[in-house]
């Protein structure tokens, strides 16, 4: 089993460490690799798209030729986890900010995203969040976070803050507006790994 973390920009090492910790917790061994260039995505059984700056990430996955490979992986049914910037890039459509910057989107999930949905950095927050697939609240860390404004019929909503969707899944794709890799609670990562191991 091989799990790849897109390592173009953002909090990559935190994701690598979290996946490794989650694997250790469940007593599974798998190789965790970082992906900076094309050719590695097709060898992976699971993909993680970390947080970072979505405009930067979007430009570089195109330039490096990784974008097409991720789309192919999605079609093959490879589980994909996107957090924060990762969520934005998974979306099919975006708000006016996305249009203004001509931002590249992978279009793997039938959602409309709103960037910086909760405001600027001084408005970033932690909160105890109810996530439908977890048995108790999860300390979710939102950093200049996006939110999902509209989700298609096939999208399963897992968590919301007021009318903003902050966690959702569709087929093999799991998208989060917050950062499970910044905390020690591995339940979200375990939920993702369930898709690989079950």
């Amino acid at each position: 089993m091989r799990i790849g973390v897109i390592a173009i920009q953002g909090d990559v090492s935190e994701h690598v460490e979290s996946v490794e910790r989650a694997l250790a917790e469940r007593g599974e061994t798998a190789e965790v690799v970082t992906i900076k260039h094309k050719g590695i995505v097709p060898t992976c059984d699971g993909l993680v798209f970390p947080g970072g700056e979505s405009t930067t990430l979007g430009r570089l996955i195109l330039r490096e030729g990784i974008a097409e490979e991720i789309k192919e992986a999605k079609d093959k049914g490879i589980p994909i986890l996107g957090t924060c910037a990762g969520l934005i890039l998974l979306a099919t459509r975006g708000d006016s900010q996305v249009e203004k910057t001509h931002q590249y989107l992978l279009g793997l999930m039938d959602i409309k995203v709103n960037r910086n949905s909760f405001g600027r950095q001084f408005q970033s927050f932690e909160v105890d969040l109810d996530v439908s697939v977890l048995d108790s609240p999860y300390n979710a860390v939102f950093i200049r976070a996006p939110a999902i404004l509209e989700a298609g019929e096939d999208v399963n909503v897992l968590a919301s803050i007021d009318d903003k969707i902050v966690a959702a899944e569709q087929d093999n794709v799991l998208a989060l507006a917050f950062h499970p890799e910044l905390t020690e609670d591995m339940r979200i990562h375990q939920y993702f790994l369930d898709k690989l191991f079950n």
Partner: protein
Amino acid sequence: MELEKLRHGTELIKRGFAKMQKGGVIMDVTTAEEARIAEEAGAVAVMALHAVPSDIRKAGGVARMADPQVTADIIEAVTIPVMAKARIGHFVEAEILQSLGADMIDESEVLTPADEHFHIDKTEFTVPFVCGARNLGEALRRINEGAAMIRTKGEAGTGDVREAVRHMKQIMGEIRTLKGMTKEELIMYAREIEAPIELVMETAEMERLPVVNFAAGGVATPADAALMMRLGSDGVFVGSGIFKAENPPLMAKAIVEAVNNYDNPEVLAEISKGIGAGMKGISVDSIPEDQVLQTRGW
């Protein structure tokens, strides 16, 4: 969701923001137009200031926070995070920048210090801070004051990368020396470098600084940026290097790509071709002692 349940400005959020910048290039900009060029090139954030360091150097006099209108215009112009510089110890400039909506404040030695004894108490702010450092002691003192990110100081505005190299090697070397030290030795070492013992122990355990560390000061070419990544920095700040280059949009794009391909000389060669001349620059050893910026900040 009740608003009072949201916890703002925690250490986790401040340091987390800095982590999202990793592997990226943060570019100095002085106008909204420059900010758009930086965003288009793939910068992860921009740093708003009234003049790039090389111009601050030429102009002389007292360098202060940029006109808030300029910072506001830059915030309006781009969707990537906007950082802004305040003078060392000038907590009112920092408060103003926070109220404008700056995403991070750089308590910077490039501006003329406002206080020669005390840095800003950064724990009092909701926004995170980045501070300069030349060695492990300076870095940990800044983190102890609440900095969520460190940048090696280099010698800003010169286009001469050697001081950035010196400071990065100094910090990485000091972290390596912690490995294998006993607790008593760490306590003694903390005393020598005038840093809190808890942070020295945390650094020893993590085998890296407890916060993100970017290179800065004198980075002027894609090769310079790649060099700093090879030396272990988490990302790169570029000041005068972009908008004092012959072709800023090309140079900006090339430096972003160089940071992503820092370990591949063949790709770096391609990236570095035909991008026009870098900033002219001045050699660090031609600068009179009273005009050296890196010694500000203790």
